[in-house]
């Protein structure tokens, strides 16, 4: 796999079927690519298909047509179970709402990410990551006992647990208080850089987007929104 691109989307199309049977296109991306270790921000208003795009890249949701290659693997051709396994090993995902599991401690939430890879398990790495996030003293705390900022840092550590090739971050600062937003962005960017992970970060916040070298407007890569509106 000599492909230097970590992510390549070609002619990706997806439409939701309305209850009336009418098709509502949400994704129509002729081409979108992210190089190895590259950090890209995608800007767009709410409800224009940002999360759907990230789900498609992660292999969580299927697309109707087109090609999605992650680190050289055509994930649209993988069976669901293989896609899940591929996702576990190659893609880190940071959610807007953090999505930590309430019953698990900070460390366990990080280790949870390693559970589904079907192979490598590095408990020590979980501690290292949390240490790097400045949470070495919060390992055994449940999410409810952590501040919002701390929760998101655990989520970042969890996304990095399996040394992914690609990190997807969906509005990672939307629910974080303004004082901690920059800290989260910095952590994500530094961590990805340190680990050589490509980053696709979706946000509608201009102050976040302005920090990135490469900023894409969702409307410009997703034709569906243009035609729809």
């Amino acid at each position: 796999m000599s492909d230097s691109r970590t992510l390549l989307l070609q002619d990706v199309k997806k439409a939701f079927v309305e209850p009336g049977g009418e098709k509502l296109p949400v994704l129509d991306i002729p081409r979108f690519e992210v190089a190895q270790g590259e950090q890209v921000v995608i800007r767009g208003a709410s409800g224009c298909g940002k999360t759907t795009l990230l789900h498609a890249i992660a292999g969580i949701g299927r697309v109707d047509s087109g090609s999605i290659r992650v680190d050289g693997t055509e994930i649209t051709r993988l069976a669901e179970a293989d896609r899940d396994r591929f996702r576990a090993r190659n893609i880190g995902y940071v959610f807007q709402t953090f999505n930590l599991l309430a019953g698990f401690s900070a460390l366990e939430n990080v280790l949870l990410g390693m559970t589904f890879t079907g192979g490598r398990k590095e408990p020590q790495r979980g501690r290292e990551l949390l240490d790097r996030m400045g949470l070495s003293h919060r390992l055994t705390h449940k999410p409810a006992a952590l501040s919002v900022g701390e929760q998101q840092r655990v989520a970042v550590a969890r996304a990095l647990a399996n040394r992914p090739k690609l990190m997807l971050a969906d509005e990672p600062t939307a629910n974080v208080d303004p004082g901690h937003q920059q800290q989260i962005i910095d952590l994500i960017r530094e961590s990805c850089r340190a680990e050589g992970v490509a980053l696709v970060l979706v946000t509608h916040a201009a102050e976040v987007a302005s920090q990135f070298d490469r900023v894409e407007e969702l409307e410009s890569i997703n034709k569906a929104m243009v035609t729809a509106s």
Partner: protein
Amino acid sequence: MSLWKIAWRSIQQRALASTLTGFSMALGVALVVVVLVIHGVVERHFRQGAQGYHLIVGAKGGKLQLVLNTVYHLSQPIENIPYSYYKEFVDGQFASMTLVAVPYCLGDSYVAGDETFRVVGTTPDLFDKIEYGRTEQGEPMRYEFEPGGRNFVSQHFFEGVIGSVVTAKTGLKVGDTFQPSHDIVEEGEEGHKHDAFKVVGVLEPTGTPNDRALFINIEGFYLLEGHAKSHAQSAAQKTGPQPVAQTFLSVQAAGDGDVSTASPRISLASNPTPKQALSPALSQREREMLVAQTFLSVQEGGDADSLTTPPRISLASSPTTPHALSPALSQRERAMLVAQTFLSVQEGGDADSLTTPPRISLASSPTTPHALSPALSQRERELIAQADPAEHAEHDHAGHDHADHAHAHDHAHHEPLPEAQREVTSILVLASFEGMQQFIYNMVNEGQVAQAVYPSREVENLFAGIVGPLRLILLVLTVMIVVVSGVGILVSIYNSMSERRRDIAVMRALGARRGMVMSVIMMESLLISLAGGIAGVALGHAAIGLVNPFVVEQTGVSLGFLRFDVQELILIPGLMILATLAGFLPAMAAYRTDVARSLGGTP
């Protein structure tokens, strides 16, 4: 982190619901365990109860009732058979096939407080020659006496030994005396009390029903007021003159010379209640006929050599009113009978064979003091059992309360009740060697006097017919409780699915495959079920352990805290299947979780 741990974490997260569903499972399993263990113990106990001998011989009638009475000291009292039939096992036609024959005389009980224990008149052989079970290694378990005690001795008529439960419940100990009550009385009811017996031994616990019984010397039992009478009475009522004659005729016909070594005995009983009712009980002619027939048959069947012991005749009369007495047997009847007997003996036997003189006993047993003196004439008393006249006088005046002079019974003063007046309720028979019991069984059951039963077979039938289905019903009920608990687990997990949909979606987003999240839910169900199951087994055995002292006290059966039933092993796969079924529905919900929609966030 393993999937098991993930499952365990979500159980912890819903601690209350998990605990409650697990607890309901534990209760259900505990009930199953209790049913299994108790049934197992009861079954073992019942099977063990009838060990050490092959057959029980008793009056024809209900087989199970005979076994319940003889082995388990349960059920309504049963009829008796002639003592002579017992003698057939000692020195008669069955003697060569019999290793041990132990007579049982039932019908008395001992009341202490609100507890009633049965009293068994028997011989010391019961404890000396019969084992009560086998250990798991096959070693025979023999009756033992607690330190300071011993078996009763045949020569000491008013001795007895008692079971361990009796000691525990009544406080009776070696050296104490107790008075059996006539008839098996209902709880709390005061029966007619007999003479006192001295406890000479307390049995070590055997785990058999004998722990709950008192055993007295059969010789003392026969001398108890009312026993000779009541037995004779019942014989007269039951059989009448004709059947008695037939019986002996048939014995003669069946047995060859050797078999008739035991002399035939005849008991004639009359039981008049009003004055007029007396003579019809046995008419003059019937008596004459009967005696004549009997002796004729003896003469015909047995040769002279076989008549080693002379025939005995007993005539018992039991008047209830003074006036009814003398008609019971007229002077002339008695004289005739005696004369006939001697005549027939003289004719049949040669001089050598008459080693012992014939005896005739006439027993009467009036129930009121005033009825006494007419009941027995001076001559009759002499004729009868050479009983101590002084003692009889004492009885006459003391009425029913013998407690005061319980110790007045000097064993040396007692003469055994003549055999003709005796009856036994049942006979425990240990065949001389394996296989022989079937011959005894056939012979006894072909005869008209008694029946022989295999106690083990009756217990088997009891279990197959009654206890087994009952157990099945209980098991079905308790298993249904377990199933309901399983449904509870299903409902609990299923209800939690809506709030856990996001967690499942997150796991899926982190790379968990559908099968994995499904497994996690299944494991959750399994963990709750198995934890509940283990707790239930512990709970069940703890409950058994808790009630054990009470059960031992009541029944003499030790349930044993750690006595596991093999069938409990079925619980493990059973619970796993149930848990899998219970977990399947919520697991399918987890399987079908729409990840994109459940993750939250905007599309």
